[in-house]
């Protein structure tokens, strides 16, 4: 039994961006992501990344906390950059040659651009995640964006159970060890034990799901039109956030186009 704790998604949030409307943040993140996804050149991505780093100040976490939260994303970006450096066909002087792998200045540049881009793509979502309460997000999705309320609310209720499932995973490991399971060595045994544990978690979760459905149905869920107890606020914060996002997205495109470096991924 090890202590793996889920990131607490329902913890209270502080910081400037936490006060912004979830829909504004979500659409803002969409805009920035779109610009980066379609652009392949490093200049666009670098400017977009710079803009986002400024926005990160509004998350309300210190630099150290930010770094400890973000390191998996940074690592993933570096790995994907490395992959590209290995497999890119870009030419240039060879820097490293091992077996069939050869890394050239061209491929290294491509890899660096990919790593930069990976980070720039990941950040908008993380910024939203770190500053938005899931309940508020669900309200925004259903009330403002008009996504089907039944599905949004069921997803929200399921999200609450994630924490329960993570706790149960640890209990399951201990309960199975008490029976003598998982004693074997080697990857095959580890895999089998993982599968067994996952299956039991699946069974427990499905049981829970049918009971939860009963609870929700008895409380009138899914019967017809519904009202909303919570109101969504739009205010000056949202205008500011919106402006910053547009500036970042448009600015990134403007800079790279004026420098003549802009390139779409299909070009």
């Amino acid at each position, binding site marked *: 039994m090890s202590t793996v704790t889920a990131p607490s998604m329902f913890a209270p949030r502080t910081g400037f961006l936490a006060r912004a409307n979830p829909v504004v943040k979500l659409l803002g993140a*969409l805009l920035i992501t779109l610009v980066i996804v379609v652009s392949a050149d490093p200049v666009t991505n670098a400017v977009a990344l710079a803009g986002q780093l400024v926005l990160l100040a509004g998350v309300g976490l210190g630099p150290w906390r930010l770094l400890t939260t973000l390191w998996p994303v940074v690592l993933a970006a570096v790995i994907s950059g490395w992959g590209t450096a290995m497999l890119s066909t870009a030419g240039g002087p060879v820097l490293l040659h091992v077996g069939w792998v050869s890394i050239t200045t061209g491929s290294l540049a491509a890899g660096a651009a990919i790593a930069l881009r990976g980070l720039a793509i990941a950040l908008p979502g993380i910024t939203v995640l770190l500053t938005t309460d899931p309940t508020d997000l669900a309200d925004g999705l259903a009330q403002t964006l008009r996504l089907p309320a039944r599905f949004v609310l069921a997803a929200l209720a399921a999200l609450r159970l994630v924490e329960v499932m993570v706790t149960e995973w640890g209990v399951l490991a201990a309960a199975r060890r008490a029976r003598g399971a998982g004693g074997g060595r080697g990857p095959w045994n580890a895999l089998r034990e993982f599968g067994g544990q996952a299956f039991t978690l699946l*069974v427990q979760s499905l049981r829970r799901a049918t009971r939860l459905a009963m609870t929700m149905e008895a409380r009138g869920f899914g019967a017809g039109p519904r009202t909303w107890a919570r109101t969504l606020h739009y205010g000056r914060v949202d205008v500011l956030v919106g402006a910053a996002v547009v500036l970042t997205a448009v600015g990134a495109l403007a800079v790279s186009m004026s420098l003549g470096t802009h390139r779409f991924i299909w070009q």
Partner: protein
Amino acid sequence: MTQVRSTTARTSPGRGPRTQSWRVVDIVVAAVLAAVCAVIFWMWSNLLYPVVATSAVAYPPSAGLISGGWLVAGTLGALIIRKPGAALFCELLAAVLEGFLGTHFGWTVVISGLVQGLGVELVFLLTGYRRFGLLVATLGGAVSGLFLGVSEDIMYNYEWATDQKVVYAVLTTLSGAVIAGALMWFVVRALQATGVLGALASGAARR
């Protein structure tokens, strides 16, 4: 005021397509299924992280071999809920929740979830949501894997040499077929034996 509580008003008995609309229990089970898939996938990546990172550093396309793990929610959703859109909803939500847990949530996660879910959904759509056998499940996993491979080649791997992109897509397809397809069909069969699917179409189908 209803009459005798039987049957035909709500559902049509027999083997054909039952009611295609979603009941509350279908929606909630689908959502929780997506959540548990996200949790299991998260544990899976914690367990395998060193292996995956190493293989991705050594030969990047090999990461495609375990990408089937991303896709289990789609096939499980289709096989368990048996409603139009179940695969899409489960895969999309699972992708978003995986993003939450691994703190890499973003719009790209939403795009991936949609594309991959669409892959499975298409296969079950073509059967008219009538067939849920091993073959269809495997096919669903494979198409989902193919969609994953191709979409990632376009979105992230565009700098790779073309033959490496092809290798990646082939590996994701294989992985999808085995892990998300065939394996999940056996998982659903084992779930049916436990009785937890009793309230759902997949649970009733066994009787």
